[in-house]
């Protein structure tokens, strides 16, 4: 169609306004939820991360870089760690607890004198759990900010970027990923001094293999022998279901129907209709929270009934509030919060803010503690030194310590230490994984409440030695 209109605005004026708006908009996009630093004076971050300045390097971080040799008199003044974070995106509702745990840990570590008597700080940047964004943020943190270790990254980011991340040869200790992809990837292969066989990833949260095994065991113990499955098509949702079904089917459970759906749909009625045409005792839902609320609201409206089993991220108050009383009785198996130092963590954590504790909050605390202890034991804050010492400060043997403060003191006395974590005992396996109990939380009028626990020992028999 030929242009045929009356110009109401001068073209030059329009271009000026549009250009200015574009620059403002672009700057908003680039720095949105961007860098924020915690630490310094003891951690001031509130976990909201909505003021990201996009800076993060430069002021506030060590002038001479966090990889300075800490030997002799010239130890670093500041040691910066990098934290890729989900300040936005579909998992952002989990970040406040993790940010607060990180900030609480930083504050605690600095109050205890800091690793190598330096001040610890965390540079936090938003990845929105987007692999491409995670690639950029991780590169910035390592190459530009020179951090000697990373505290973060989700399965959805790690798995597609595995080779890329390994090439950095910087230890990544993360409280997030549950993916079974990582069961045999990561860790020092039980040879701390030999870096040649290392894979530079450690996770302080129990993997999906463990807590999905716990959930499957619990389901079978409760005579839920036949299952329907509704899951999303993303890595995290599929991984959860695969882990669950692996144990469930190997031990006599049967899957009657499995329906995969795209996330973010306006309705899941067709998928539910197909699922509930099959006969089963319970149905497993593994979707992001917002999609799960839509799907379970549809389920409630249709009156399908039967026992819902939820993936662990769904044990949220919002789900109960939005779906209503039909969801009461649904349960989710989450990594247990039963580490030996959980009470210590909770006391310090609650003084830092009021963010809700979720399954990834205590692991975030543990991640900071083991890195700080590894630096303290190594006597220097280089990636190689931290990698060599993550295993020795956490595994059995040596004086058991609950916090960095206790560990620093023990190390100063020449003792070997074994950090006892808040989420789990934090005894890293050869593949950099941790093992722990599984808490069963059941939905009721007051939200999700812990109603049962599957001990770690019960789950261990379903997870082969050396394969986790």
């Amino acid at each position: 169609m030929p242009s045929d209109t009356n110009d109401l605005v001068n073209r030059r004026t329009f271009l000026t306004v549009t250009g200015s708006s574009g620059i403002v908009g672009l700057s908003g996009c680039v720095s949105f939820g961007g860098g924020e630093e915690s630490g310094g004076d003891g951690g001031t971050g509130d976990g909201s991360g909505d003021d990201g300045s996009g800076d993060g390097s430069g002021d506030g971080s060590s002038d001479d870089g966090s990889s300075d040799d800490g030997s002799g008199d010239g130890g670093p003044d500041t040691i910066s760690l990098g934290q890729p974070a989900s300040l936005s995106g579909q998992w952002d509702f989990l970040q406040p607890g993790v940010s607060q745990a990180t900030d609480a840990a930083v504050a605690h570590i600095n109050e205890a004198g800091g690793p190598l008597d330096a001040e610890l700080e965390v540079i936090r940047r938003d990845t929105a759990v987007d692999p491409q964004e995670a690639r950029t943020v991780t590169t910035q943190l390592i190459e530009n900010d020179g951090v000697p270790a990373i505290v973060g990254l989700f399965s959805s980011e790690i798995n597609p970027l595995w080779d890329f991340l390994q090439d950095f040869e910087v230890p990544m200790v993360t409280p997030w990923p549950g993916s079974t992809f990582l069961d045999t990837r990561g860790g020092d292969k039980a040879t701390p001094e030999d870096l040649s066989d290392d894979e530079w990833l450690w996770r302080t949260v129990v993997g999906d293999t463990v807590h999905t095994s716990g959930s499957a065991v619990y389901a079978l113990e409760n005579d839920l022998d036949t299952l329907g499955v509704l899951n999303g098509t993303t890595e995290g949702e599929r991984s959860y279901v695969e882990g669950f079904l692996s144990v469930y089917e190997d031990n006599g459970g049967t899957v009657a129907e499995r329906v995969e759906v795209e996330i973010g749909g306006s309705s899941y009625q067709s998928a539910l209709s197909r699922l509930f045409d099959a006969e089963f005792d319970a149905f497993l839902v593994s979707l992001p929270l917002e999609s799960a609320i839509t799907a379970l609201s549809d389920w409630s409206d249709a009156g399908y009934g039967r026992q819902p089993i939820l993936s662990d991220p769904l044990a949220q108050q919002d789900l109960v509030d939005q779906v209503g009383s039909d969801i009461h009785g649904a349960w989710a198996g989450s990594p247990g919060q039963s580490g030996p130092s959980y009470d210590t963590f909770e006391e310090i954590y609650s003084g830092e803010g009021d963010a809700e504790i979720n399954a990834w909050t205590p692991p975030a605390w543990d991640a900071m503690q083991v890195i700080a202890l590894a630096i303290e034991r190594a006597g220097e804050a280089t990636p190689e030194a931290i990698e060599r010492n993550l295993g020795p400060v956490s595994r059995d043997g040596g004086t058991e310590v609950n916090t960095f403060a206790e560990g620093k003191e023990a190390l100063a006395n020449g003792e070997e230490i074994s950090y006892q974590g808040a989420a789990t005992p934090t005894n890293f396996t050869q593949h950099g994984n941790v093992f722990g109990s599984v808490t069963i939380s059941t939905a009721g009028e007051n939200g999700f409440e812990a109603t049962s626990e599957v001990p770690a020992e019960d789950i261990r028999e379903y997870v082969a030695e050396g394969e986790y």
Partner: protein
Amino acid sequence: MGLLQEAIFGVVTGSYIAIAAIGFTLIYGIVNMINFAYGEYLTLGAFVGFLAASAIPVPLPVAVVLAMIGGGVISIVLARGFFTPINHTGPVPMLLTSIGLGIAIRNAIRLFGGRSARYIETETATFRFDGVPDVTVGSVDLLGGFFVTSEHLIVFGSAVAVFLSIHALLTRTDVGIAMRAMGDDESLARVRGIDTQLIRDSVWVLAGVLAGLAGVLMAIQTNVSSTTGFSHILQILSAAILGGAGSPYGAIIGAYVIGLALAFSTAFLPSSMTGLSSAVAFAILIVVLLVKPSGIAGTEVREA
């Protein structure tokens, strides 16, 4: 569940898409641009509805009306600010501007509106019709018991009201007839004394009103977040193109074809392929365009 139940689900999904697709295709047909920022119009409408229902608060029907008004106002303001000044540059610069505007609005909403999803509180009633006999052909039950919810009825009822209103507007009012005239030939319409800028503005307002309605209906079914509209823009675009870009009647047909394709493919694809239902809908789009490039109800292929 029988085919009838699946058809009901498909019709409801199609109704969401159709309301938005009419607004999208009106802009395409009369302003001659593909507005990729249209998803954000839905989002803004959803936010207006949410704020009206929860912050003021007003009854839900009033909130829906306010969302429609808000959508219309937002649409004309954005059009005057970003699209009207470059009308003469042609469809491609306008398309690119709309992409940039959409990104800027989406991030602005995330920045100022917060990151968490919000929910509009509603009560849903379910009506069951279990006595309908089965009529089986092969392994497929054509009828069988079914249910509808009050949300289904509201969405479908809203869509029908929109269809009738749009039909009346385009065939019974001077503005509607002028819109059709402009859609056919803007120069000729102008020569005949039609105030083309006024008609463009009318189209922007109308498209915004429809976006506001679609946005708030989607928000009631799902939630209100920065991606409420963006996550549906591909379906809206596909419905408009499938039906014949520029044709409101075609957009309605296209929307229901896509809605039914989504429902039936989820119901009947092999278990391992149920996550590909959207791909099936787009495959239908490709096939239709190969057979009839102008779309189901289209009569011409436009430049953009």
